[in-house]
């Protein structure tokens, strides 16, 4: 069977499964549609949350980020997992006790203000829409690479599948498809990693293999990797960073952003009890960690594999790295996987010095320039897109073709599961918070369901359009989505639970301060609304205030949000008694019942 047929079989089978679930889990009420009926088992919800959370970026890009950045990019690992600790302790159980359907629901009721509700709705929509663009383009890339369809067709197919189970099943359909998607993506991620870890270290468990001995050279794998990359002018893989403040703030921004992202929070509204929300957060992190503990192993091993493929002399025990690093392979002798990926344009070779060999080194390092010149090298000749590491893993490790089919299904599962969660967050904010609560409170249950389905359909069309015509800022999603969620939504939610004193004026002023400051800081360096050329300062560390990058500013915005909210609240009147009673009631699990309609 050809590779194409195998890929088609795997992806087709996974789609059949998702559609089957969609037919089985149709939503009969708004409660089904928004919170899957409120009866999801905490372990099931943990698995669904893991798939909801792990996007195309986690599945495809993270190992590549770690491979290229080494230690310095550990922030992604800690930030995207540490957020669950604060979510489990500071938000999830109390919001579950509150017992309504959406995040703006809580903000609007707790701060007895439709202005606060509206700010929350806008933050939610902007964060979720920017996030969903990346999922659609990710699905498009996976389709075009593995199923030989055009990018455009890939995005339309993805949209159609999501439409089927999200519009009919709402949260109920999404929950159970996410469980299936988690299983597909974790198997797809783990199998090639196990083989590669075993080949390089003899230890089949990637997270242990990463810290074991590299079989062929007899030295620890990470030390071997350091030696190899340094010999070619790169930074040590494990090198410490100079700007610790920025690393701390970046990690913190990712954590508060994770805890404040509405599509993650609403998953915890689906479990039956407050205690279940706590357990469920733990299970979610277990399922996420299965991938996040494997990712750094995949990153480091793939980097080593790439370097030793190009410089075979460096593979085993090396006496003299100076000599071993001067002998790259001939372009003609490159392995098949490089040939395959060259066709996609994600690996490119440009023989600058016309010697027929592949020079892969750090040509931006002035200290290495002399060595390179002495060897007759005229610049780095091989550019490898970070995103291919995971996708190319099975080919690098010479695994059978069914593993490649599995990776295709896994990448698509990761993109679709996150897209569906985001689309639900967007459509429930429109149908529930805007239409039902603010515009037409008299709308019937049936009418609200219809509104929810129509807004879901509209959101899918918008996401498809943006996936087909990605705006220039698609790559800046991380800064924007996490900045907004961390600087505006997270502090408002936390203060709503932990302070009885913060009132409507304080909350609105705080959210707007956090949001506007963060946006201003991001736009100053990345351009107004990300339009290239409109940035007021070049995006370089020298220009950043105190060395804080725009990506790290969400945490600073959050601090300003807290400060302003407390200052304004203490200068104005206390919240009314019934609001203080509401805060009191969300703090105690007793009497939660199931999610209530209103």
């Amino acid at each position, binding site marked *: 069977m050809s590779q194409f047929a195998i890929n088609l079989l795997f992806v087709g089978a996974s789609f059949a499964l998702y559609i089957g679930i969609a037919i089985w889990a149709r939503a009969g009420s708004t409660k089904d549609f928004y919170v899957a009926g409120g009866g999801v088992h905490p372990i099931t919800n943990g698995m669904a949350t893991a798939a909801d959370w792990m996007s195309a970026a986690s599945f495809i890009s993270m190992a590549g980020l770690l491979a290229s950045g080494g230690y310095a990019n550990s922030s992604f690992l800690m930030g995207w997992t*540490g957020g669950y600790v604060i979510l489990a302790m500071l938000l999830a159980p109390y919001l579950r006790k509150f017992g309504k359907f959406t995040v703006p629901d809580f903000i609007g009721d707790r701060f007895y203000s439709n202005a606060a509700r509206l700010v929350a709705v806008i933050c939610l929509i902007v964060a979720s829409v920017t996030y969903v663009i990346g999922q659609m383009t990710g699905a498009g890339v996976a389709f075009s690479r593995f199923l030989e369809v055009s990018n455009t067709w890939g995005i339309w197919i993805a949209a159609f599948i999501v439409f089927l189970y999200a519009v009919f099943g709402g949260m109920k359909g999404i929950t159970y498809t996410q469980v299936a998607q988690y299983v597909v993506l974790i198997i797809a991620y783990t199998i090639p990693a196990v083989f590669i870890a075993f080949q390089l270290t003899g230890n089949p468990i990637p997270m242990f293999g*990463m*810290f074991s001995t590299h079989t062929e050279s007899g030295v620890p794998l*990470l*030390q071997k990797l350091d030696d190899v990359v340094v010999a070619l002018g790169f930074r040590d893989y494990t090198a410490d960073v100079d700007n610790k403040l920025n690393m701390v703030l970046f990690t913190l921004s990712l954590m508060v952003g994770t805890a404040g992202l509405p599509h993650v929070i609403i998953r915890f509204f689906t479990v039956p009890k407050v205690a279940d929300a706590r357990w469920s957060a733990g299970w979610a992190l277990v399922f996420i960690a299965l991938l996040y*503990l494997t990712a750094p192993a995949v990153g480091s091993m793939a980097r080593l594999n790439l370097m030793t493929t190009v410089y075979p002399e460096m593979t085993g025990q090396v006496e003299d790295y100076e000599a071993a690093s001067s002998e790259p392979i001939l372009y003609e002798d490159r392995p098949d996987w490089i040939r395959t990926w060259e066709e996609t344009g994600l690996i490119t070779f440009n023989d600058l010095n016309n010697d027929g060999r592949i020079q892969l080194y750090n040509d931006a390092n002035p200290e290495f320039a002399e060595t390179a010149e002495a060897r007759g090298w005229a610049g780095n000749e091989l550019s490898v897109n970070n995103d291919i590491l995971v996708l190319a893993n099975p080919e690098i490790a010479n695994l059978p073709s069914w593993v490649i089919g599995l990776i295709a299904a896994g990448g698509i599962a990761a993109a679709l599961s996150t897209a569906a969660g985001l689309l639900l967050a967007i459509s429930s904010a429109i149908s529930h918070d805007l239409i039902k609560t603010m515009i037409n409170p008299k709308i019937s249950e049936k009418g609200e369901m219809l509104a929810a389905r129509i807004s879901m359909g509209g959101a899918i069309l918008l996401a498809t359009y943006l996936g087909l015509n990605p705006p220039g800022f698609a790559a800046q999603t991380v800064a924007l989505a996490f900045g907004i969620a961390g600087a505006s939504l997270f502090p408002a939610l936390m203060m709503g639970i932990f302070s009885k004193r913060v009132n409507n004026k304080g909350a609105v002023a705080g959210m707007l301060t956090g949001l506007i400051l963060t946006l201003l800081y991001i736009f100053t360096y990345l351009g107004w609304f990300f339009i290239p050329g409109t940035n007021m300062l070049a995006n370089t560390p020298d220009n950043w205030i105190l060395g804080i990058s725009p990506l790290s500013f969400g945490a600073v915005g959050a601090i300003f949000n807290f400060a302003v909210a407390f200052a304004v609240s203490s200068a104005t009147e206390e919240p009314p008694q019934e609001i203080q009673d509401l805060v009191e009631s969300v*703090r105690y699990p007793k009497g939660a019942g199931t999610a209530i309609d209103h």
Partner: protein
Amino acid sequence: MAEEKTDSTGYWKANVRLITGCLIVWAFVSYGCAILFRPLLSGIPVGGTDLGFWFAQQGSILTFIVLIFFYAWKMNKLDQKFGLGE
């Protein structure tokens, strides 16, 4: 009524204390061991690199998992003790 009030205040205080303790550990492993104190831990070798690197790429995540389950378990006991569970 008065007694119930004291009880629930005690419950909330115990919860906040527990959260504070857990978040100190949370910050210590990630911002401490993995980032700020990494130079101090560089003398402790782990598989070809140092303890700080291990905390940054694996140790923190493992600690986070333990923290959440520990918190959920303690809170369940607290819910029962104060009779506030469901």
